[in-house]
Every structure is written in C-alpha cells, then in structure tokens.
C-alpha cells in the first residue's frame, strides 16, 4: 500500500476493483465504513460522505455496501480479465473530459518528457504490440497471437538527461527559462509562463511546443536535446494516442459492463481529480492473478497519477495483502527475484552478474573486474537531474550492508571501522547464490516435473491445493527425492503420497511406489510464537506469544536455524556456507529470539556493535550491516524495538496515520511519496501548501517539515519560493511514470485477453486499430502447456476462483476448524439464474466443471449475483468457484485449481487463477 489502512477513512471516493474486502479483509472494511460515515470530516464528492464503487464479475458482500450515485448503485460487473480495458476507458474519460489534475500531471508526472523517436505504441504499429518486438519462431498458439520478447531500446526517453523537463541544459531552470514573475525569459511576448503551460496539444501553450519555442528563441540548442528533436513526441502525446482507442463502445463490448453504471463510475471517480479531493483504489488478487497482472496495476496507477491522487491522504493505490504477513515476507526476500529489501537477486543468465550459468558452464572470467561492480552498476540507476534525489542511487550501500550481515567476518573488520577490500567484496559476492533466470512458482514445479529440482522445503504453503493446475503439481511432488513441510496440520501437500493426484486414497502398494521421503515439521501457530508481523500498511508490529505451542510444535525461527546449522556443519565451502554468520553463528545461541532477529534486520555498526540508527547511515564498504535496509531504523538503539510501540493517539487536523503506533518502513513514513500531497510550484517542485487543507500529510513549519515523515522533499522556499526537487524520489527522474519503460510487455497497459479467452474464436483483439489485430494474448508470457489452452467453442463459460471470509487460502487451517466448516461446508460454484436454467441446474445440485486441465465437482449456488455478459453481441456466462478444498480436513472436496492453467504474468509469473474457460454439466 502507498497509504495506510487508517488513512482510507479520509478518502472521498473509494474504488474497489479486483478485491473484496468485506469478505477477504473484513477488518479493512471498518476503515471504508469510517470514510462512508465521514469519521474524519472528509466531504466526499457531494458534501455528503465518501462514495464507494465496487467493480467485480459478481455482486459481492462488498458490493452490497456500494454507494448510490445518480440514482444508481455504484456496482459494475466486469468480465474477468478485462481490468485494463475497464480502467483504460476511465483514463480515456478523464483525458477527453479534462478531468485530470493538470498542475499535478504537468509537474509531478513524466507527461512533459520526450520519448525516443523510434518508439511506437499499438496505436501506430497496428499489430497490438509495441516497437521492438522479436517474435519467437517456436511460439505455440498462433491463433491467439505471437509470443516473443521486446528489444526495449526504443522505449526509453529521447536522451534521458536532456529529456528531463528541468534539464534542457545542465543549468537550473529559473534563470534560463523564467523571469521573476514566472514568464518565459525569451524577452518576446510569447505568452509562455509557469501558469499557462498546458497538457492540451491543441493549445498554443502545450508543453511540447514550449521546447520548440525555446529552440526557436535560442534559449536551447538542438545539441542540448539530442538529434531529431522535431520527431520526438512527449510522453503526453503518446498517452493521448494510446488511451483514445479505449472508447466507451469498445470497453463495454469487451468488459460486458453496464453502460449507464460505467458512465456514472467514470464521472464519480474523476471528481477526485480536483486537487482537494482524494480517491483511493483498493485491489488484491483479483487484479494481480492474470497474465496481465502487473499491467492491471499500472493502469490503476496511471489513473491515480492523472487524477493527482498519489501521495495524498485518502488516495494512493492500495494492495490488500492476502495474508497477515505477506508484506513482511516479500520485504524479506521471499520472492525469487529479490533479496531482502527489494534488492535485485544476482542472475546467472545476465552477463556480468555471475560466471556460471545453472549448468556450470563458464560464461565469464573468474575474477572478472566487472564483478560485482557490473551487478551493482546494473542495479543502481543514474540520477537524471542534479536536483532529483534518485533514492536508488544508494543501492551499493544496501547490498553491501546485506552482504556484511550474511558474512560479517569476511567483509571489512568484525570489530572495527575498517572498510572492506575490493578482494573481500569480490569473494563475498561470489558466495551469493545466482538464480538461473526465472524461478517462480510455476517454473519450479515444471523443474520438479523435469527432474531438475530434487527437494522442496515448503513452509506455510499448500501447492497441492493452492498451486495452479494442481493435479500437475501433485504429479510434480511425486518426482521429488524429499519434501520438508512445516504445518499446523497434515495438509494435502504433506500427505500427497497417500492419495492419487485426483484425491482418492491409495493402497499400501501404490503408496510404496512413491519414492519421495516426506518430513512433516509441526509448526507453532501465530498465537504460539513471538515475532513482528508486517501488515499491508507496511507496519511492523511485534506480536507476543500468548500460549505455548502444543506437543513438539516449534517456532519456525528455531526450525530454520537448525536446518541452517546443519547445512553449515555439512560444509558447502564453495558457496560460503561455512562463513555465514547469520543466525546462530552471530548470536552464539541455537535459539535466537525474535527480538534479536529484529536487531539483525535493522543492522549494526562494526565499530561498536550498536544499531545503525537510520538507513541513510548505511555504508557501501562493510562498515555497517543490515539484513533488510528498509527496516533500518526500526531498532534505532539497543533496547528500543519500535515495532513494540503502542501509542494509539493521533494529532487532530491531519491525515489519520497514527504515526506512534508500531513502526512503518521506510523510516516510519505512513504515506509514500507524500511530497505529492503538496500543491506544485515551479516546474516539478513542491510548494509549502497541502492540496487538502483538512487532512494535510506534511506541511512546512518555519524551518522543517512536520506531520508524516516527509518523503525526501527539499525546502519549499529553497528555490524561488518552491522546492527544486520532484516528489517521486524512488524514480531517477523524480517524476511519476506515465511511460513505464521497465515493463515486459510495453510502457502502456494494453488490453490482452486471458490465455483461455472467450473471444479466441473471433481471432481478433478488438481494441481499435482498423478492424482490430490478431494479438489476442499478452505476447511476452511463457506458455508451458500449449495443448492445454481452452477454446471457447468447446469451453464456452468463463470461470474464476476466489476466497470467502470463512475459508483462508488453501484451507490447510480453516478446513480443520469445525466452526468454519460449519459455515462453509461444501465446495460451491456460483452461477447465474440464466445459466442454471439453460443447463437444468437447480440450487444445491452437484455439477461437474471441466476445463482443458481437468474437472471438479461442486454444489451449484444459483444466484442473482452473477449476471450474464454481452461480449460483442454474444451472451457469455461466468461462474465463480471457491477454491480452498482438498482431500484433507474435516470437510473435503475438489480443489478449484484442478481447473486453472499453468501460465503466469509476463513480468512476475503470478499464476492466472482468475480467468479461464470451462464447461458445466449437471451430475
């Protein structure tokens, strides 16, 4: 979350899309209710309290609380997998009706940046792809489009430095372009001033024309801008081209949304483009679990940037985490591609990161002078303009401090302030494991099937139920030599060897044929262990043990520590195992406490073994350690663990962020990019005036920022009455990116269908370009099973899966609790009255749902809450399945993931659980 749970209470309009907080985040709904009740005095769009909008394929318990606007309830149905079309249409509405927050977009976004003249979006290429596409000749499903990857060289800014609006030249902006009253300093009556600059290309004061003007009057030389400046477009011109194609007609036909409600939603949410109004977007797995999951989030972010909602109280884009500590686990490097603190994991497939690829083939020179320098250089962005903070320039401090934490004695001095030598840095870098390219969930199960992964340690995960295409994943488990699993109960994964892949009990002979050795470690439940838990608000809250764990159950810290010690004793010298100091080696105990681990996470100074007070003090040379730089400052001095703080008071007259409760990363900042909550001034700088006077996030008090911990914002009076620094400090250009050149499948979100697409038989992606184009699916995904793609002629019904309040994740806990099984005893498929009627299905009947991957049986819940969709004149039904069942527990049933495909997002490979094709018959 960019913002914080409590802050949702000040929102004026709340858009829930791809989430269902009333059911899956019940505590979150309290804060939504606060907003609807005006608890913090927010006025809402009509002075009568906040408004709630819910967009979802079905009418949920959250939707039941959606507000009334223009006499209609603000619930809109949307076919699964069409978020980009839905939101791009909203963006188009905002642009066409000029509802954007122009000062914000001009100053804080990249709208004014120049893009490489070779860049082309789908509006110009005509084939549904961006410039630079390299098709893979062996692409597997030609009817759905090409598969390949991008050469992204044309996606960058024109010339990165000179493209920066502040950096037409390496000089400061005021003296060169503006006179004292803020008019253009060209000396002619050109009319350009800080106030007249416009985002409208038709206006004579359009930002793009300003550059041309400066060239004409000689304030700027073409050499400052690089070649072909006349051919370069601004980001804003590309924005206009890209989103104009998402006209309402196309959006309604793609999404199946109700056109009247869609209009109202566009109108209502765009009211938050006013600088003193804030709108927030709440999303969760309904957004991310798609082959276009990351681009879905980019579409939301783009909308929020245009409406000026980022950085403000009651604004932001807020991902609701699926488990209490998902935020903490990703912060601490649970995902394959990052080390703790979101530091890129060295990757053997990237030349310069490592010498060896995964087959131990030499791809570089040992002792190559570029290593680790080339890895660090790859991960450290340059500063695009001298005034911008570019926070990630500190990457070397964070990675070296992490290496110091892992190998305390091998880097610098263990007890003094001596810095590390380059040789030490080289040696320690060599010990960091290099990933062999993509190692996401789907990939490791494919590798298990292929026999290249022999063992699996599974903590708190139940892939036999929760993994996509779960029957395939159950087959993969059978190929393992060993499986270590830590659980409260023996779940489906731990007991896979007792059951067939479809869940029938095996005979003892059949069990004996499975060679995998399974170790089940009894885990302590959350009430039975200490440790800090990080919520979606990034708050690290220390939680104390309430009761002793039963029997042999133990804290994972102890389990992992024993595994760690055993590995160390086994002595894998090659990988630096024996030199590792993490954990027991460091503390001289085989039972490190959670509090001590917090200290290690925070980091220590080698000189005196006291905590590092803040991450700005971390050093790139082995004089400091930190196991996760973003948590540096949580434990600022010995004996002070701020995650234990419990002060629940809140200063009146500001955003309700409860700064003294626990501790939030980074540096206890509750609202990220909070400089953008100030009205802009100058070009890209901030003033001292909060946009929302009722809920200011930060404000200037004579000599310092007060309120929330300010996000790297400089003195607002430091330069000609404003700050010279732009608020998006994590970006090297300091501005919010409307043009995201880092994405796998394009800088702008483009609608692609799910792999199982209900319009696949049409052969056309209808997003306007003439008669449409043939790129139906995301061109950058990896398709593992091309022969298991659903065809809408055989599988005409859209399927999706979701959670309910009563069951959690793969049900490993909740299906062992009688009270929860009482509430939700059976696996259920929800369907519309129309579909049920056409299939002769009655409420409560057993039905079979079948996809290209497999089938499952479930009880039918026939309901008004699912409606049919009209997709380009065809009627399409969608059904929704609760996914938590399996063959263990008090209540058993088929897992919905028997149906879902082995395919994931092009960037992250999060599985596409949320949209597939199926057919249904009554049993």
């Amino acid at each position, binding site marked *: 979350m960019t913002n914080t749970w409590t802050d949702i209470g000040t929102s004026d309009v709340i858009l829930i899309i791809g989430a269902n907080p*009333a*059911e899956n985040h*019940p*505590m979150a*709904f*309290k804060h939504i*209710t606060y907003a*609807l*009740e*005006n608890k913090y005095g927010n006025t809402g769009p009509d002075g*009568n*309290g906040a408004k709630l909008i819910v967009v979802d394929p079905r*009418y949920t*318990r*959250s*939707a*039941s*609380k959606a*507000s*009334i606007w223009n*006499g*209609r*309830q603000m*619930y809109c149905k949307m076919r699964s997998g069409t978020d980009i079309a839905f939101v791009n249409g909203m963006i188009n509405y905002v642009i066409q009706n000029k509802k954007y927050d122009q000062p914000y977009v001009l100053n804080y976004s990249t709208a004014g940046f120049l893009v490489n003249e070779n860049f082309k979006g789908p509006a110009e290429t005509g084939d549904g792809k961006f410039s630079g596409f390299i098709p893979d000749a062996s692409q597997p499903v030609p009817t759905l489009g090409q598969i390949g990857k991008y050469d992204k060289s044309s996606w960058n800014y024109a010339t990165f430095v000179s493209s920066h609006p502040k950096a037409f030249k390496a000089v400061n902006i005021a003296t060169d372009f503006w006179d004292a009253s803020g008019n253009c300093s060209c000396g002619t009556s050109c009319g350009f001033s800080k106030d007249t600059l416009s985002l409208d290309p038709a206006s004579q004061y359009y930002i793009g024309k300003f550059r041309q003007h400066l060239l004409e009057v000689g304030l700027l030389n073409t050499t400052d801008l690089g070649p072909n400046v006349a051919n370069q477009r601004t980001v804003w011109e590309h924005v206009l081209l890209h989103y104009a194609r998402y006209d309402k007609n196309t959006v309604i036909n793609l999404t199946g949304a*109700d056109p*009247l*409600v869609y209009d109202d939603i566009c109108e209502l949410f765009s009211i938050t483009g006013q600088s003193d109004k804030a709108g927030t977007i709440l999303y969760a797995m309904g957004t991310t679990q798609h082959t276009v999951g990351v681009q879905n989030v980019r579409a939301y972010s783009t909308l929020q940037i245009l409406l000026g909602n980022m950085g403000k109280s009651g604004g932001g884009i807020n991902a609701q985490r699926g488990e209490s500590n998902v935020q903490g686990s990703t912060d601490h490097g649970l995902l394959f591609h990052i080390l703790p603190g979101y530091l890129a994991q060295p990757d053997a497939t990237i030349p310069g990161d490592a010498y060896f690829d995964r087959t131990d083939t030499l791809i570089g020179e040992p002792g190559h002078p570029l290593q680790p320098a080339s890895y660090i250089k790859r991960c450290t962005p340059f500063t695009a303009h001298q005034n911008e903070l570019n926070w990630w320039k500190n990457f070397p401090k964070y990675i070296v401090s992490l290496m110091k934490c892992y190998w305390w004695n091998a880097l610098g001095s263990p007890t003094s302030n001596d810095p590390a030598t380059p040789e030490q840095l080289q040696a320690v870098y060599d010990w960091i494991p290099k990933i062999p390219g993509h190692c996401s969930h789907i990939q490791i199960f494919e590798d298990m099937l292929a026999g290249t992964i022999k063992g699996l340690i599974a903590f708190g995960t139940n892939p036999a139920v929760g993994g996509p295409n779960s029957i395939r994943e159950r087959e993969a488990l059978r190929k393992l030599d060993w499986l270590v699993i830590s659980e409260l109960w023996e779940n489906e994964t731990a007991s896979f060897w007792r059951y067939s892949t479809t869940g029938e009990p095996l005979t003892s002979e059949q069990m004996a044929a499975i060679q995998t050795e399974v170790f089940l470690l009894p885990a302590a439940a959350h009430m039975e262990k200490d440790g800090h838990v990080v919520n979606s608000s990034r708050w690290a809250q220390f939680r104390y043990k309430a009761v002793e764990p039963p029997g042999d159950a133990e804290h994972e810290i102890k389990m992992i520590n024993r595994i760690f010690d055993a590995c160390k004793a086994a002595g894998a010298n090659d990988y630096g195992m024996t030199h590792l100091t993490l954990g027991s080696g460091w503390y001289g105990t085989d039972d490190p406490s959670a509090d001590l681990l917090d200290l290690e996470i925070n980091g220590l100074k080698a000189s005196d073994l006291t905590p590092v007070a803040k991450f700005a003090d971390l050093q790139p040379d082995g004089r400091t350690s930190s196991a996760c730089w973003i948590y540096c400052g949580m434990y600022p001095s010995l004996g002070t663990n701020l995650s234990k703080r419990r002060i629940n008071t809140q200063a009146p007259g500001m955003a309700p962020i409860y700064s003294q409760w626990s501790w939030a990363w980074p540096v206890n900042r509750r609202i990220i990019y909070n400089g953008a909550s100030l009205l802009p001034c100058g070009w890209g700088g901030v003033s001292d005036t909060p946009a929302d006077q009722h809920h200011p996030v930060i404000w200037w008090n004579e000599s310092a920022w007060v309120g929330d911990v300010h996000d790297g914002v400089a003195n607002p009076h430091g330069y000609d009455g404003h700050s010279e620094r732009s608020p998006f400090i994590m970006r090297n250009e300091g501005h919010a990116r409307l043009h995201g050149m880092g994405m796998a499948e394009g800088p702008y979100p483009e609608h692609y269908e799910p792999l199982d697409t209900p319009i696949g038989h049409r052969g056309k992606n209808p997003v306007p370009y003439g008669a449409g184009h043939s790129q139906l699916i995301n061109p950058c995904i990896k398709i593992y099973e091309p022969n298991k793609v659903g065809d809408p002629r055989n599988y005409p019904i859209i399927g999706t899966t979701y959670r*309910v*309040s*009563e069951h959690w994740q793969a049900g490993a806990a909740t299906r062992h609790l*009688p*009270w*929860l*099984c*009482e*509430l*939700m*005893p*059976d696996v*259920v498929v929800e369907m519309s009255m129309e579909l049920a009627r056409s299939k002769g299905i*009655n*409420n*409560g009947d057993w039905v079979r749902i079948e996809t290209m991957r497999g089938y499952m049986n479930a*009880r039918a*819940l026939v*309901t*008004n*809450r699912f*409606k049919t969709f009209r997709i380009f004149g065809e009627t399409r039904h969608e059904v929704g399945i609760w996914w938590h069942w399996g063959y263990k527990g008090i209540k058993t049933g088929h897992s919905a993931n028997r149906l879902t495909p082995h395919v994931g997002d092009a960037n992250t490979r999060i599985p596409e659980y949320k949209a597939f094709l199926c057919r249904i018959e009554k049993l």
Partner: protein
Amino acid sequence: MGDKAILIDTTKCTACRGCQVACKNWNDLPAENTSFFGGPGYQNPKDLSSITFTLVKFFWSGRRGADVDAYGNWQFLKYGCMHCLNPRCKKVCDTLYKAIYQDTDGFVQINQGICQAANCNACIAGCPFGVPKSNGQSVWKCNACISRRGYSYPNTLRKDPVSGNPTASSWLIGPELAPACVSTCPAGALKYGDRSDIIALATARVADPKVRAKFPEVNVYGDTGPFGGLRVISILTRKPGFYSLPPKSAKY
C-alpha cells in the same frame, strides 16, 4: 448492571459471520455438521439450534423498480434471541416451572437446572421469533454472554450441550465485557450499552441523510415495539416483513 441493550446495524453488517464463530467460541458450542443446503446467499446452518445461538441470515431483495437496486440488495441480519422487555417465553414458563428469568441487565435467561428437570418446551411455542431450541433435554438460546457480564449462572454450571461437562466459560469472567459477538464485530455493526444510549444511536443513524440515500426504508426495530420493546435493537435496511420479522406494531 442496569438497563442494557445490543444494537444490530444492518447498514454496516458485511456478513463476515465473525459473530457466529465468536459465539460458539465463547460459549464452547460444538459445530454442527452442515452441508450446503441451497439457502439464500451463504447462510449456514439453516436455523438456530441448541448449539447455535446466533446466525447471520442472508436475504436477497431482487429488483424493486428503480435503478437503485438494479442488482437487488443483498441484506444480512444477525439473528438470535431478541431479549424482549416483556418476554412471552418467560410468561409461559412462569405459569409452569419458572425456569426463565431476566438477569439484572434485563436479558432473558434460562435456568438450565429447572429446565432440564421439566423439559416441557412450552417456551418454544411461546416465542414469536422462533428462537428457543431444545436438544431433547432442555431449551437453549442466546444468554447475551452472561458470563462476560459479571454474573455466574445460578443453580447450575454451564455445561457442554453434548458432553454435559462443565466448560471453561462457565466461570465468571466479568465485570462488564460486551457479549462476544459485539466484541468481535469488525464492521462496527454491533454495539452494546445502556438501552437509552443504544436507542439514541439507532435513531440518529436512521435519520442520517447519508444512510437514507442508500437505504430509503431504513428503520429502527425494537425500541418501542414489537411486543412492547426489545433489548436487541436493530437498524433494518428494509421493512421488518422483508426479514420475516413481526411488524413493529405487533403485540402479544
């Protein structure tokens, strides 16, 4: 001690059913072996029982004319003993065994010692809300978590309805914890307090134009009627009949 009440605000309830689980937890009630019964929405179990004292009922209103409810409205009502000011179950029992009484906060209680000895079930027929349920030996219903409010059960220990063993929560915990359902409600839909305060809160909520904009029929149920008033005061989004409740004007 005093004149207490529980508020159920259906304009805020999201039907997470935390109250159902909290009730079973506090009162050590076993789970029922249910199956999906095709009821409205996600409701389960089907009805109250001697081991289910509270239950969130789901209602679907369907289209009702204006576009306001194009998808109908999904309504939720936490259901259980209404703790009538003048309980008819008590009136019936008074003429027979005097097992039913009102505790000092005014909530209606069943003396299980007397009830088990009598096992007459007359109160079941007497209740206009269909609340009391027998397990064959005696009648059970919501006790407004008397063990959280500073009183122990008179005469008999609270016993597990299945095993008959005294249970942990039969011990006096008090004083003055709100009932478990109220404490657990994440939506803030349940409140506990003095009855006059609860009625004032409900009356103000119903008059709020924000609430009326979304729920034009919103009304207070249980303040003055039915049956002379209840100790469970509900803010209903729809008229009582929609929830199959007796009209507010109903009298014994």
